[in-house]
């Protein structure tokens, strides 16, 4: 069995690499074929008109696209994604400036989302159609419907402008380096609390609704009635029988959502001035920083594939029957 799992895993990894290769190839041609030009920032009344041309030349942009592609592939195989036009640094090192923050921020928010939605859903199904259940389902629908930039700005308005409790943007204070360790943690927390709430609210709503409906479905199944008839404790029914049966679809959704979030949470990053992958990606697209666009897509693609893989493995570990089906 173990051997078989390993085999399937290798298969999965190979197919992931092929997908990533297709992504970067597709994006490589797409950014070059779409209008616009990376040398645009060298167009200014105070610069020589020939500078843009010179820059194009040195970036090899005057070569035919297929020649550029061959050059690109050769360096990618050597693990080099090129130098970002904007940052004048290695693409990988630029991404490494942004990625750790996104990983930390998204994971923190994701854990919070999972815990809160789980607790709420379990509470809700204890008394289906009860007061708590109905209020929450209305509230989550509303949170789900409200656009993130609206909730974001609203939260800033309440907690930062009116109550003046938290800073409205940024990741740390100016005097950060003078703080001791505990103050540093507190400083981060203070800056991150509003963005995390903003990012989490909508996702909590999604997860809550999924989990709650699944729990309700399972509760209505006959085997639960059978358990009840046999006098099993209500608590044991919920945790030992209902939840394991209801959680599978949630893991799939969570895997997809986590992947998307890891690719960048653009709106939250812009509203709160945070250094995440979303901003980096959009900036690189708008300034036609081709190597960085490809680097960002590659990072986002890898993370989405990874998140889905983890979700699948988790599902399989819960239910051995579907192991082969999903690892295909």
């Amino acid at each position, binding site marked *: 069995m173990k051997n078989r799992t390993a085999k399937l895993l290798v298969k999965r990894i190979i197919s992931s690499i092929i997908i990533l290769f297709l992504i970067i190839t597709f994006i490589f041609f797409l950014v070059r074929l779409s209008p616009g030009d990376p040398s645009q920032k060298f167009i200014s009344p105070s610069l*020589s008109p020939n500078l843009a041309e010179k820059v194009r030349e040195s970036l090899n942009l005057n070569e035919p696209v297929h020649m550029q592609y061959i050059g690109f592939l050769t360096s990618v195989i050597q693990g080099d994604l090129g*130098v970002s036009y904007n940052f004048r640094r290695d693409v990988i090192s630029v991404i490494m400036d942004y990625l750790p923050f996104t990983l930390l921020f998204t994971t923190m928010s994701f854990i919070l989302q999972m815990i809160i939605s789980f607790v709420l859903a379990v509470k809700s199904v204890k008394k289906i159609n009860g007061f708590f259940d109905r209020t929450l389902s209305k509230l989550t629908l509303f949170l789900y419907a409200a656009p993130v930039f609206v909730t974001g700005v609203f939260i800033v308005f309440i907690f930062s402008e009116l109550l003046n409790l938290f800073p409205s943007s940024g990741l740390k204070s100016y005097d950060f380096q003078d703080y001791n360790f505990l103050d540093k943690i507190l400083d981060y927390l203070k800056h991150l609390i509003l963005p995390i709430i903003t990012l989490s609210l909508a996702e909590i709503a999604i997860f809550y609704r999924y989990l709650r409906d699944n729990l309700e479905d399972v509760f209505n199944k006959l085997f639960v009635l059978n358990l009840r008839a046999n006098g099993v404790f209500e608590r044991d029914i919920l945790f030992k029988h209902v939840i394991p049966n209801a959680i599978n679809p949630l893991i799939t959704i969570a895997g997809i959502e986590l992947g998307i979030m890891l690719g960048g949470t653009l709106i939250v990053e812009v509203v709160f001035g945070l250094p995440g992958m979303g901003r980096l990606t959009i900036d690189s697209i708008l300034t036609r920083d081709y190597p960085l666009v490809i680097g960002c897509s590659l990072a986002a693609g890898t993370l989405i594939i990874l998140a889905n893989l983890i979700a699948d493995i988790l599902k399989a570990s819960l239910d051995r029957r579907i192991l082969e089906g999903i690892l295909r």
Partner: protein
Amino acid sequence: MGIRCNLSLKSLYLYTIFLYTFISLFVFIKQNNKLMLKLLKNIHNILPVIIKKLYLIILFCSLLFTGGCEKESPNRQNRVIIGISSDISSFNPLFAFSVDEGTISELLYLSLINFTWDEEKGNINPGPMLAKSWEWSEDSSSITFYLRDDVYWSDGKKFNAEDIVFSFDIYSDPDVQSRLYETFSDFYTDEKNHIDIEKTFEVSDSFKVKIKFLPNSTPTLSETVFHLIPKHIFKDIERKNIATSEANFNPVTNGPFILAGWDKTQSIRLKANKNSFLYKPDCIDELIFKIVPDYSSRVTQLKKKEIDLVELIKTEDIKGLQNEEYLKITPQIGREYDYVGWSNIDHELYKSSGKIKPHKLFGSPAVRRALTYAINRKEILDEYLLGYGQLAVGPISAIFKDAVDPDLKYYEYDLGKAKSLLDTEGWKDIDNNGILEKGNLEFKFKLYIPSGNPRRSYAATVIKNNLKQIGIDVAIETIELGVLIDNMYEKNMDSWMIGWYVPIPLNLKFSWYSDLKKNPYNFASYQNKEADQILDEISIETNPGKLNELYKKFQKIIYEDEPVTFLYWVDNIVAYNRKIENIDINPLGAIHHCWEWTVKEQ
């Protein structure tokens, strides 16, 4: 190019509050009866739960408390915080392509001469900086700089003449691709415009350097002024790799400030350089550039005193900011104008065969003048810019007081004049369909505007409505800025709207000279031999009086030809905390000379 969010904060709040109230009301009404009853019935059940969960409430409150107690106010004494929209990519002045990069590298590196703005003359005035004094040779073929001997780089090495020679060498090196690439036209250079060091420089001692120019050239002082870089740091780096070198991020500098910290994408911290000859103990000792990409957030933070100065305030926010007593708002007459570009030549023919023939719609100066008459520019200025700008007559800003021609009056909105001008050009509405014709050709075209710029969208709508009244059909096409610029370069459009700014000192040849191959910035493909001649004369004239006469002559020609419709100059509106004193906002920038700012005790 950062991301610009064009939502007004106020409307967003209103929208949010409205949405929230509406939905909660809806939920409440729908459940009112049952809900209230349930609450009352269950109150004996709910209360103990609340008391039980009190610890949660305490936890929440303590969290709020930690949030509330600021460790230290962000506004320390003698510290000024400036809000900017995007991070910089290099501290090296060689590559200071964006405005913010220019501002910051100017504070870190010094140049030979210090330019200040002369409000009277409307021009720049040279003063000593790294050079104590300088003298031109009698025939203006060379200049000798006498340098200060008390300037040190931040690593302790003394600044000397070698750094100057090296800087000229690097800036002009085509492999480096600096921002001054190909601009050293009055120097001895090789065919690639790389300065010939042997022929150009004469270093007599460490603090005296003579620069010799090409015979028969007309050098000016501003050609020798840029931020010098340390030779001992960059000399061992291969020229091609300087752009990506680590030395750009750990700069060794000699300016009034030194880099104290760079928190990428968050903030740039500069500290006063106490070893600098520009240091004054009572002036600001810390300057922070805080990167806030969202414009609305920048304004919010300005109001919250988290930021002390923000440039490019939008007119719709001025009222809200004026209500805050501690803020001062200063409009600075702009160097940037918006214009509607008309392709002067048949661009398709030019692209296919290289032949130059007037454009079938906009080829005639009379038609272009008629279009300008028909556009109500004052309406855009008053309604959108709330008067924070000036109507544009030509390509020279009003800040250049002596160069701008006061006799030229802007084309006033006059539909009658526009119609009669078009009539004499043969544009008549023969088939009474509301659109002018000339032969088989109807007067209709597409006006391309960049997306994400509400000012230009507003102006385009006004223009469309105005031109409709005289029988011209305009279709507005909004495209992404990058695509628009590409199309301008490729000459793909009949008409477009964009902004342009004038450099200091003036340089008009780039954008108005007829030779389209050598001047790709002549996007409108303007053709006029007389204007070319004046531009040639301007480039060799050094006498300020005669130069201003030439500028005026040039403006008259442009005024008659109206190659593009100049709309308006946009003010740079700067809002700053009144605690900053001794601040001089002029066309060179708001932050220019900020080492002389002081902060009032609060």
